[in-house]
């Protein structure tokens, strides 16, 4: 941890940073809104929107929440939590994407290969 006076010095430059981050956040907000109106095809819209959100989130965490100045443990805690967010999302979606297609809910839009689709399904459960 930095010495108390060193910390006070840090705070000097903070106001300017806060202004810059705020403006950047607003810019990114309108940017992501504008890009969403373009309806980027092929699922890239999601990627772009999430990339912008991650950038904004990064700015908030680093500067508003001072992770930029703080020592390892706090950063590690936050990064670890993000790793587990990614882990849970990725492996659950991967399951739905790769499982026996009929094991996904009826009406879902996961591509179903013809070879595994049985012909003439009997009555479906409600």
């Amino acid at each position, binding site marked *: 941890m930095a010495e108390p006076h060193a910390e006070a010095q840090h705070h000097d430059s903070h106001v300017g940073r806060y202004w810059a981050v705020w403006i950047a956040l607003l810019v990114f907000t309108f940017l992501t809104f504008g890009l969403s109106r373009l309806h980027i095809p092929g699922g890239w819209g999601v990627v772009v929107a999430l990339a912008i959100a991650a950038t904004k989130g990064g700015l908030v965490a680093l500067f508003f929440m001072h992770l930029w100045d703080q020592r390892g443990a706090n950063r590690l805690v936050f990064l670890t939590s993000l790793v587990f967010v990614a882990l*849970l999302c990725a492996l659950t979606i991967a399951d739905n994407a790769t499982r026996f297609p009929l094991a996904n809910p009826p009406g879902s839009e996961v591509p179903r290969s013809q070879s595994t689709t049985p012909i003439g399904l009997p009555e479906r459960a409600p």
Partner: protein
Amino acid sequence: MSPSLASDPTVPAYNARNYLNEPATGLKSWAFTLDHKRIGVMFLVATTVAFALGGLFALLIRLELLTPGPTIMDAMTYNRLFTLHGVVMIFLFMIPAIPSGFGNFLLPIMLGAKDVAFPRLNLLSFYLYLLGAAVALYGMVHGGADTGWTFYTPYSTTTQTNVVPILLGAFILGFSSVLTGLNFIVTTHTLRAPGMTWDRIPLFVWSIYATSIIQILATPVLGMTLLLVALEHAFAWGIFDPARGGDPVLFQHFFWFYSHPAVYIMILPAMAVISEVVCAFSRKNIFGYKAVAYSSLGIAFVGFFTWGHHLFTSGQSAFDSGIFAVLSMFVAIFTAIKVFNWTATLYRGSIAFRTPFAYFVGFLFFLVFGGMTGVALATASLDIHWQDTYFVVAHFHFIMVGSTVMAFLAALHYWFPKITGRTYPEGWGLVGAVLVILGFNFTFIPQFLLGNSGMPRRYFSYPERFWALNVASTAGASVLAFGLVTVLVYVLVSLRWGPIAGSNPWRSRGFEWDTPSPPPVENFDTPPIITHQPHLYHDVAQDPAQSPAPEPSHAR
């Protein structure tokens, strides 16, 4: 050095000014205490009551299974009983018992701290535990639930039983667990005594620290999941409801994302205890300090990547199953490392076969078999046969009861002198240990065979060919219960009439033994300065007359 010890070090002395009678002894002083030791003791009492309750449910279950058809109850009562057994044992006993009980008492002392970082949060954690237990008990009395502790949807969302209070109780208990974990991590980071570098931290603390990481990262997911089930049951919000396009398997993913690491919440503290006990009773430094310490962290981390091995038969994709299966193999390695290191610690030691050590022997046996059957289950194809049979029941009881309860009992005996200032009767202790270990084997080894032969779990009645093994298992359970009652009786008697222990009856070199028994309110009479790893025995002459004199290496 406390004045009471100064007169004659060979006569054990009772530390007159201790946390039990200072600052006051009334009920109010306990109810509003911020002392981690008192909170730890309260957790120990509460979890022991929960253990007794869960054990009673288990006995009733075993009695019901004595004959193939209905024996002493009907199917609905049976379904409620096994649910309550699971909920009480896991949420009220297994998860809090060692971390919140022994951890609270010992972790700050081992680090040389005066208290945990956030004493108020610590007390809040205890009251959240009581509140959660009360809400869950309300649900049990008013209808109970018949879902099993796993709460699988859509059964749990359509059952007529009163499942919502039990879900909310578990949700509240989760907060208690999170607060305790948070406190331990911050304490370990910020309140270590001078000289307590990371490579001198006792192995107990390392394991509890790893446990805390899991508690913090996994518990919120379970809390949210249980809330979703409660919302679906109460208001038909339908997040997992197949009729509204929901996916019941997703619930299983969420549930096991917590509940598989939760297995490590239960077993890591047991490993914490064992690492201390094996050193103290073989009077040896741990063989491979770093290996044991880091393998705790490894278990905590890799344990998160294996939840899908509970879903091999549930329609999960082969792709996911492969990932989860292979990662499960890696998490088993960390446990293997610990087992080998504990065994190697005995080499050239000076082994005293006392009660805690007897439980260590039981622990080692159960962990090896429980762990190896776990790896066998993770091979995916064998799990297809064993999933949801008594094999799985036996496997996780080997880990949870076999290992964790053995460690709990080892801890109870090992630190009983520290917590109470008194000793228990050694002869009765060994009798109890033998009864518990034998009873446990007779209970659960037949269940492995039952699972092999195909008996599914949660069966109220069963075909006659499973009869003989079920009788054997019930007989074993009665021996186990008898052993546990024996332990309970002599422990209660010793609380009041046990001989005075002195500050370090085992002449252990764990840091917690450097303070008088019971410890003073601020844990140490003089703030300790740590100059070496715990459990170093080679640099001191083991002369009873010298102990518990201050070790030369402990500059005071």
